[in-house]
């Protein structure tokens, strides 16, 4: 089966994350991100999925150098690849260098961004502020022109420049935030749950807008959400996070058709299809492990129907799947796909994509 995405031949990274770990300092430090390896291709939409608390927002904040204490990076590196072939070590930037790099190369649309606008300033004042800060040489007329152009680009009437945020609908505010993130033409746009608080129709419009802008301007998007049905529609590739690690990664079609990690299976089975038959619909009972714990086992083991002894004894590495139909398309961190570790061939039902929860009840420990 060939499920390689067609764009893969010209895939080249714009950003790579290697061994990234982030702790939240506390009496017992919380290891929120645990050695994440991830690459973002130039111009691709990478979907980052996982439950709340899996570390997906922390990861985005860390890559953008936006973490505030008590959170701090304890290991790993992030490399940005410029179009001209040079590289930037993101964690080595400081002071003025960092200020110039951030928002120029990597920009972010935050969760609940529509409430992130300053309520006492007009849209124009807030957009122009970004240009003034990063390109002080631009004159007033040029700034005004660029702001109007940007609003038009994200589908907002430029006459809205002199409106205050409360005069705009939630969808319009979200578009203004996207405009603000795109103002300096970044190469990578991080979007953390950008549509969660919006109505379905508006959400749809924003998603279509993101896809259109990406095609037009060629930036890459890291789209963070727990909503798998959205990710499947918008992403070129998907990475699934669980308890601070990436547990599966691959082209969207491959992940949708032949998910490998039992957690991915569970996630895919946990939302019903709008038009399909309601067969085998259930969630994933249980809860994520305590992130203050050092994990020397598979973090998903206690919720996993395919658990064997090895799953409690060692952490599965994130590796290319040896001889699955998925082939080179993607990586998975699951013992069950490696007979040498699992002790037997992967269960038929796992390969068929079945996820039967071990427990129908919520068992409190």
């Amino acid at each position, binding site marked *: 089966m060939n499920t390689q995405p067609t764009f893969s031949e010209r895939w080249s990274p714009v950003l790579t994350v290697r061994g990234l770990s982030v702790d939240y300092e506390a009496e017992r430090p919380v290891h929120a991100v645990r050695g994440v390896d991830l690459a973002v291709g130039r111009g691709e939409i990478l979907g980052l999925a996982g439950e*709340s608390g899996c570390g997906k927002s922390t990861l985005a904040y860390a890559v953008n150098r936006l973490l505030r204490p008590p959170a701090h990076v304890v290991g790993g590196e992030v490399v940005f690849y410029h179009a001209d072939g040079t590289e930037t070590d993101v964690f080595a930037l400081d002071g003025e260098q960092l200020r110039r790099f951030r928002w120029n190369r990597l920009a972010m649309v935050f969760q609940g961004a529509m409430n992130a606008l300053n309520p006492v300033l007009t849209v124009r004042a807030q957009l122009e502020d970004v240009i003034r800060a990063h390109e002080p040489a631009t004159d007033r007329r040029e700034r005004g022109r660029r702001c109007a152009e940007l609003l038009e680009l994200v589908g907002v009437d430029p006459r809205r420049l002199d409106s205050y945020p409360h005069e705009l609908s939630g969808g319009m505010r979200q578009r203004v935030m996207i405009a603000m993130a795109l103002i300096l033409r970044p190469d990578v746009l991080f979007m953390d749950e950008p549509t969660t608080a919006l109505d379905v129709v508006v959400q*749809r419009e924003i998603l*279509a807008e993101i896809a259109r802008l990406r095609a037009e301007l060629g930036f890459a998007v890291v789209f963070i959400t727990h*909503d798998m049905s959205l990710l499947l529609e918008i992403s070129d590739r998907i990475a699934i996070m669980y308890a601070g690690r990436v547990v599966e990664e691959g082209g969207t079609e491959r992940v*949708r058709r032949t998910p490998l990690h039992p957690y991915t299976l569970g996630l895919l089975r946990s939302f019903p*299809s*709008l*038009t399909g038959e309601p067969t085998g619909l259930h*969630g994933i009972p249980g809860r994520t492990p305590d992130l203050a714990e050092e994990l020397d086992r598979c973090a998903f083991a206690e919720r996993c129907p395919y658990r064997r002894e090895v799953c409690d004894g060692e952490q599965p590495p994130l590796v290319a799947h040896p001889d699955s139909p998925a082939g080179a398309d993607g990586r998975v961190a699951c013992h069950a796909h490696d007979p040498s570790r699992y002790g037997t061939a992967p269960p038929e039902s796992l390969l068929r994509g079945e996820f039967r929860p071990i427990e129908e009840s919520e068992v409190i420990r």
Partner: protein
Amino acid sequence: MSTFEVRDLVKEFRLHERGGRRRLRAVDGVSFDLSAGSTVALVGESGSGKSTLARMLARLLPPSSGEVRVDGRAVGTGRRATRGYRGDVQMVFQDPFASLNPFHTVGHHLSRPLRLHSGRLSSSELNERVERLLERVALVPPERVIGKQPHELSGGQRQRVAIARALAPGPRVLLADEPVSMLDVSVRLDILNLMDRLKAEEDLAVLYITHDLATARHFSERVLVMYRGQVVERGDSDEVILRPRHPYTRLLRSAAPDPGGSDPLTVPAEPASTEVPDGDQGCPFRARCPHAMPVCSRRPPEFPVGGGHLTSCWLYESSTEENT
């Protein structure tokens, strides 16, 4: 016979604004029935009035007009009538992080309604009833759950506690206002499956309020679609969701994510919305409707489109049979 009848319910808010007062009809003449062992899904976007409706049904907000009948009897307004009503009609709220008191244990949350609604109980009886409630919502082992505080539980487990609390007075009607939208995707279906099981096992009449068409279709027998305070379409869930008639329901349907479905990420064309004046008597959707006609300035009645499926749209005026 219907357990629960809602007739012509209206809620008007007075708004004080610059330039005088105006009235906002958040709920504008809504009627429907709930019957035992069956779920009705109420679908709508924010601002459709669905939460205002739920708050009126839970008696957290007095209606401007209209009435609610339980077992054919109108419900009075006094304190005693309200307590009797709450014994029959219970609500599960959207946010289990806010609806449980962080200082109280699970046991406390469940024993209070039991004491309020079941008269005197000895402490061993009370304990047994609490454990039994936890078993019904599959939170096990009960003796361990009882002493937990909300922060020790996950969102899904908290919502189970909230459902158990709603079951405590032995209600026959369960109102669930977006019961899973604050929860992680991985546990949403379990909560919906639980409500579905309770509906069948305990013969509950359930109102499931949601903005999600897919779960509305799979977890209800009938669907009501609300827009700007009015029910614009109603019928069997498969009928309404798979063969929507009202232009608004069609818009919602085409905007809902359906991976693996047809053409991804197309946006339905929608004319620029023009304001409909307050107190407008016409179809509430006509400002956004691609099919708006002169007749739409009059409020459409519900037209049958076959199989108990009704829609408030003038496009279906002459139809008694299939018409798409």
